[in-house]
């Protein structure tokens, strides 16, 4: 980040600066979610992308390949997703902000490097434009069944951050947030899109650079003799250096101590893995974000994210028209989970209705948060289509107190 950039805000001891104007396509556009995601990355200061083509995500890197040379960036089409997902880590350690983009099968291949990014605390962004699975599944049709894979698809214990946009505008906005969160917590951040949001075209407003907040990478001010690459600050996040800056750091995916040196023992593992997990868990309240619609008096709480939230919104409106107090809780940040808000809502809700394009992933988290205090009903979808609002409405009606009167 340009040192001349204006400091916009200080959050949690971290600076926010304004976006580099070179990457910001200020104006009102008509873009699909994939294109908007690409613009979000450029606005966020990302100048390096590596990827391997896969429907329905390819348009993101196609646009990046076209735009990057005009703004000082680079796109590498690598030989596969194993390569793309670690090439971006290399670029990050060289000082770039970097991301990769994929869909189900490619996402599966990236899992090992998600773990590597977690373990080495390499801030990067991975976009998964979800399609129907398993395996090659439905390349051109939507799914939301990679949500658990995003959370724990790599081996070992860890926490990450995942966001779920429900419109092209949010594909733009949340991509910027994803880059910022990655820097703030030094963690891989996932943008969990879906084919519908990726391919839907809508108005996208890109603000002027001065109105876009960017979290720059936090480099150490300590000299090499005093710097320990994995000594964390009070928030559990260590400061970084770049290759080439004269710090003889050693970075490894092995369990390591504060010096970054391999340490094959239980104590080092406890210290490192707990910190990696806690730097996210202990900041859940700051990271979690959601949107609420008519929840104040709601007795039926519908929970839905991504494209499904738009369908669910219609179901909620239909229920309201029938006099049923329904509301929508839309997780924008899906991981970490908005558990606290759900626990509060469990005090008022008669039932929770969870709609998602899978056969039950986030619903399990809702059940866990609600802890049996109200029924939690799943409106599933195996992939390939969005729900009909009527399906969700049906579930709302089934659990509403006034259903007899109305029917």
């Amino acid at each position, binding site marked *: 980040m340009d040192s001349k950039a204006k400091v916009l805000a200080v959050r949690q001891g971290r600076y926010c600066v304004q976006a580099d104007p070179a990457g910001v396509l200020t104006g009102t556009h008509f873009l699909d979610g994939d294109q908007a995601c690409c613009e979000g990355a450029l606005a966020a200061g990302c100048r390096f992308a590596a990827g391997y083509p896969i429907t329905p995500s390819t348009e993101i890197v196609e646009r990046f390949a076209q735009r990057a040379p005009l703004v000082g960036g680079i796109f590498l089409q690598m030989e596969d997703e194993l390569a793309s997902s670690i*090439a971006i880590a290399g670029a990050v350690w060289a000082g770039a902000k970097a991301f990769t983009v994929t869909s189900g099968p490619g996402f599966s291949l990236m899992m090992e490097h998600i773990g590597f990014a977690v373990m080495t605390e390499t801030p990067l962004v991975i976009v998964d434009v979800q399609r129907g699975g398993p395996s090659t599944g439905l390349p051109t049709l939507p799914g939301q069944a990679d949500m658990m894979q995003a959370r724990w698809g790599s081996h070992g214990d860890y926490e990450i951050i995942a966001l779920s946009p429900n419109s092209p505008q949010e594909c733009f906005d949340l991509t910027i947030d994803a880059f910022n969160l990655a820097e703030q917590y030094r963690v891989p951040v996932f943008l969990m899109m879906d084919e519908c949001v990726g391919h839907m075209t809508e108005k996208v407003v890109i603000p002027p650079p001065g109105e876009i907040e960017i979290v720059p990478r936090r480099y150490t001010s300590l000299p090499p003799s005093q710097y320990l690459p994995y000594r964390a600050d009070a928030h559990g996040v260590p400061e970084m250096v770049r290759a080439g800056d*004269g710090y003889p750091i050693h*970075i490894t995916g092995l369990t390591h101590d504060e010096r970054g040196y391999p340490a094959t023992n239980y104590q080092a593992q406890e210290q490192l893995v707990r910190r990696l997990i806690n730097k996210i868990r202990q900041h859940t309240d700051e990271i979690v974000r959601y949107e609420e619609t008519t929840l104040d008096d709601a007795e039926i709480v519908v929970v839905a994210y991504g494209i499904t939230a738009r369908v669910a919104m219609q179901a909620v409106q239909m229920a309201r028209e029938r006099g049923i107090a329904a509301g929508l809780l839309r997780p924008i940040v899906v991981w970490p989970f908005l558990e606290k808000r759900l626990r509060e809502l469990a005090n008022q809700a008669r039932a929770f209705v969870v709609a998602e394009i899978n056969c039950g992933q986030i619903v399990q988290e809702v059940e866990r948060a609600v802890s049996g205090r109200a029924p939690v009903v799943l409106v599933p979808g195996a992939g390939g289509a969005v729900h009909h609002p009527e399906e969700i409405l049906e579930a709302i009606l089934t659990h509403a107190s006034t259903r007899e009167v109305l029917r």
Partner: protein
Amino acid sequence: MSVLAEVPLAPNPVEAFIRSERIPHVWCPGCGIGTTVNCFSRALLQSRLNLERVVVVSGIGCTGRVAGYLQLTSFHTTHGRAIPFATGLKVANPELTVVVYSGDGDLVSIGGNHFIHAARRNQDLKVICVNNFTYGMTGGQVTPTTPLSAISSTTPYGCFEEPFNLPFLAESAGATYVARWTSYHVRQLTHAMGEMLRKKGFSFLEIISGCPTLYGRRNRLGDGLDEMKYFKDKSVVQHGANTKEAGIGFQGPIVVGKFVDIERPVFLEQMNQQLARTLDAQYAGCVGDYVPS
């Protein structure tokens, strides 16, 4: 106190390159990897490169541990993926000298796809492969370089797969520098490493190295010294040899030397030229020193 202890020892010139706080290392007695690190340190010393800009990237394995012992910016990545990580580093900061240091299994088995594509693209990486004919770290299984009939823990009745001839593979895929030596040839190794450090483009050095604990023991080849004797006796120096004929049979002759040293535009040059040609003034140029003026 012995007399010896009072004589001040001349400092070892490679000490500055080693993270001495990490010694003792994990390598077995008689293993050739340490020897190659010694050669590499000497090559660095002679290169007069700004060491702040030299980065070593390893994959996983016994050789993969090299990154962790060098007092340089170093990355110990994942099994097979040192090359794509190094690619990201190099492309994002072309001023870095990026060395990939790893084992045969890492580079050409699990990482084989990345190896050939980086060579094809002529990524400016210096790839050093310690070939001990086996997977050392995991206990001596067969690898793509195990000679026919050699015993490994997963070919207990002898290897029946045709091995890769690495110099031939590297040259065919597009490497602009290809050499092979053994851990016996310390001067030649140091020299070759020095050449690679100066060379622009995908350069590849195969180092045939002993693994007395696993490969040597299973094949009754004696100890580390016996393996060295084999390297000494059976190596045939043949600069410019046809790499196609450089395959290695079980305890057979080892063709060593510099086989390839050619010029070809590197990836970033090609990219910058193409973009500058097509986009003209619109090209923002991402990597200063390669942008044609």
